[in-house]
């Protein structure tokens, strides 16, 4: 009797666990399929967008009428963006700098620049025509290889990523296949991911395109605003102590904690809860951040603004003026920009953070200032009246001034800044000071923290 009961219980348990296991297996299969479908969709979309991109590039090359040229070039730009988005969703072994991505971004951007120019009545130089043809030439094999990958998925059962080496390979008994793709050799890929890696390697070997745009260069090659001469670690330490004493930490003993290796190389110091960077060239305080606990506030934002001005004086930064603020609860962040002869030079920016408990400086960042600051010469300009006439009708100007604004690709534009209203919205409109062309529009939004430009 007892034995029967046991057998019954065990059988029941077995049946339940079988049912559970089968259900889990089925669910896992569904998830795998959903994932697989997503991957296939990304790859197919990628191939399709690449194919359209290739066609549009060809048409953009041959089109001679401006309207057609603008149409195809704009399509090149949107198709390359779409292809890049698909490409970013395809499973990969690891993510690094992608030359396929770079190629797509740059061809899209280049086409957009040309389209904008043609739309504005400009022309395309023969050199640019050559670059555009060159892009098409490079795209063709990429397109072919991606289509080939899709074909091989069906015929050779390609997997998405290379399998991890099996225990046989780990023991050195089998052959290593995973390594072949990484160095760009032409061994046939075993997975989609290594096939795309090979594409990447073949694009990497080609010389970069020559054009200037947002994505042509990203960082300044060399900081323009640092004082001359190298400083030693000890001299930098002295600079750090001096800075700390000026902001209320007398007799501070900062400790050296490392160096940074950028275009703007620095010595790094720590003192209590603060972090400080002193540039190797010129010994300037580039970055400072105090992470001390902040007590209940005793100051308002306006008081903090006055404190910020006083600190700028004390640190010998008279050349910059505060232009905006953002409240972060226990501290306020101020941006100050360089002003010369009434011209606001926005790229030369310094950021300060003032604690609202005692008005002490808790953050300072002069990286943009030191990266971009240099003596600028201003070209001949339109008068303010001429510039105002270039604005659209019904734009009610509230403020105006001259300014230098950064433009993508590390370029600067000397312009008139107009702050004004149009149909219930507030904007900043920048007109090129030399020719009155509209360079930039920013919409002003009031967030709980302060004004925000978008």
């Amino acid at each position: 009797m007892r034995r029967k009961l046991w057998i019954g219980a065990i059988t029941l348990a077995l049946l339940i666990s079988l049912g559970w296991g089968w259900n889990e297996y089925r669910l896992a299969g569904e998830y795998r399929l959903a994932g697989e479908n997503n991957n296939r969709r990304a790859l197919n979309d990628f191939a399709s967008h690449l194919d359209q991109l290739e066609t549009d590039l060809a048409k953009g090359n041959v089109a001679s009428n401006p309207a057609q040229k603008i149409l195809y070039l704009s399509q090149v730009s949107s198709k390359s963006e779409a292809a890049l988005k698909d490409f970013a969703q395809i499973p990969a072994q690891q993510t690094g700098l992608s030359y396929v991505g770079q190629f797509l971004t740059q061809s899209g951007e280049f086409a957009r620049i040309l389209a904008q120019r043609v739309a504005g009545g400009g022309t395309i130089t023969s050199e640019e025509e050559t670059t555009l043809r060159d892009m098409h030439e490079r795209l063709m094999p990429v397109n072919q290889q991606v289509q080939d990958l899709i074909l091989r998925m069906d015929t050779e059962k390609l997997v998405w990523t290379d399998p991890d080496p099996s225990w046989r390979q780990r023991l050195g008994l089998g052959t290593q296949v995973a390594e072949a793709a990484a160095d760009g050799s032409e061994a046939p890929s075993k997975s989609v991911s290594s096939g795309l890696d090979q594409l990447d390697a073949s694009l990497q070997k080609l010389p970069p395109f020559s054009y200037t745009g947002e994505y042509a260069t990203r960082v300044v090659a060399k900081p323009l605003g640092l004082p001359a001469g190298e400083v030693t670690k000890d001299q930098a330490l002295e600079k750090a102590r001096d800075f700390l004493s000026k902001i209320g930490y007398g007799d501070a003993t900062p400790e050296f904690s490392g160096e940074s290796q950028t275009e703007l190389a620095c010595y790094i110091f720590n003192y209590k809860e603060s972090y400080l960077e002193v540039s190797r060239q010129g010994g300037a305080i580039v970055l400072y951040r105090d992470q001390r606990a902040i007590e209940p506030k005793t100051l308002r934002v306006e008081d903090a603004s006055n404190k910020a001005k006083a600190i700028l004086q004390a640190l010998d930064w008279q050349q910059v003026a505060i232009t905006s603020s953002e409240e972060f609860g226990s501290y306020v962040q101020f941006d100050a920009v360089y002003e010369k002869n009434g011209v606001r030079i926005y790229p030369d920016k310094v950021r300060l953070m003032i604690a609202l408990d005692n008005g002490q400086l808790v953050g300072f960042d002069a990286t943009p200032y030191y990266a971009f600051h240099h003596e600028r010469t201003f070209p001949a300009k339109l008068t303010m009246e001429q510039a105002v006439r270039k604005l659209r009708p019904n734009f009610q100007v509230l403020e105006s001034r001259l300014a230098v604004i950064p433009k993508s690709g590390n370029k600067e534009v000397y312009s008139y800044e107009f702050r004004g209203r149009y149909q219930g919205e507030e904007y900043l409109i920048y007109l090129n000071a030399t020719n009155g062309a509209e360079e930039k529009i920013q919409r002003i939004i009031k967030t709980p923290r302060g004004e925000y430009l978008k």
Partner: protein
Amino acid sequence: MKVHIRHWRMVITIGLLLSITLSGFAYAALGDRLLGRGSKGSEVTELQKKLVQLGYAVGTVDGKYGSKTEAAIRRFQKEHGLRVDGLAGTQTIKELKRLTGQSTNASGKAVGYKNIDTNLLARAVNAEARGEPYIGQVAVAAVILNRIADPAFPKTVADIVYQPRAFSSVDDGQINLPPSASAMRAAQEAVTGSDPSGGALFFFNPAKTSNKYIWSRPQIKQIGNHMFTK
């Protein structure tokens, strides 16, 4: 019989009184009264939602002012320069309401929170750099933004964060944890232009990574446990 009637009257009166006071509680707006340990009701739920929105975890949003809600209020008060007492009084609630409000355009029309990208960025920072110094958190947010500016990477925050194998915290689901207040602040600061990473495109923990590719990148600087590289 008489006793019975009195009894009924009393039940009805008490019932009426109760329902009036309770509905008063239920419909009371946040900020009408001081909330503290033991408070309950829809106001507490609203309070908890606002705390979570700003990155102060309260456990579950259940309308009960318990120890976790009190701790969240204390942290909020500390980080916003308010007197730290663990009670949600006028000042604290006013500040919470202000910070969780929508953005407006020049004529005062609400235009949404305008923080979709910052929010995802904050999640990534929270998942990747929890426990790192604040400046290291800003640097992680800056790396993602630097990638947008680099031709070799996708062009939106979501595309970069969810790129396969780009962030381990996406693979293990930590990206879905609600971001902390400091991660939100760090993301916000990076969006407005701070980049303590020095233009980095990658970061990794040298103690935990053996990946050859990442070690081959030119190193810029170390902040906390993270090495930032080009």
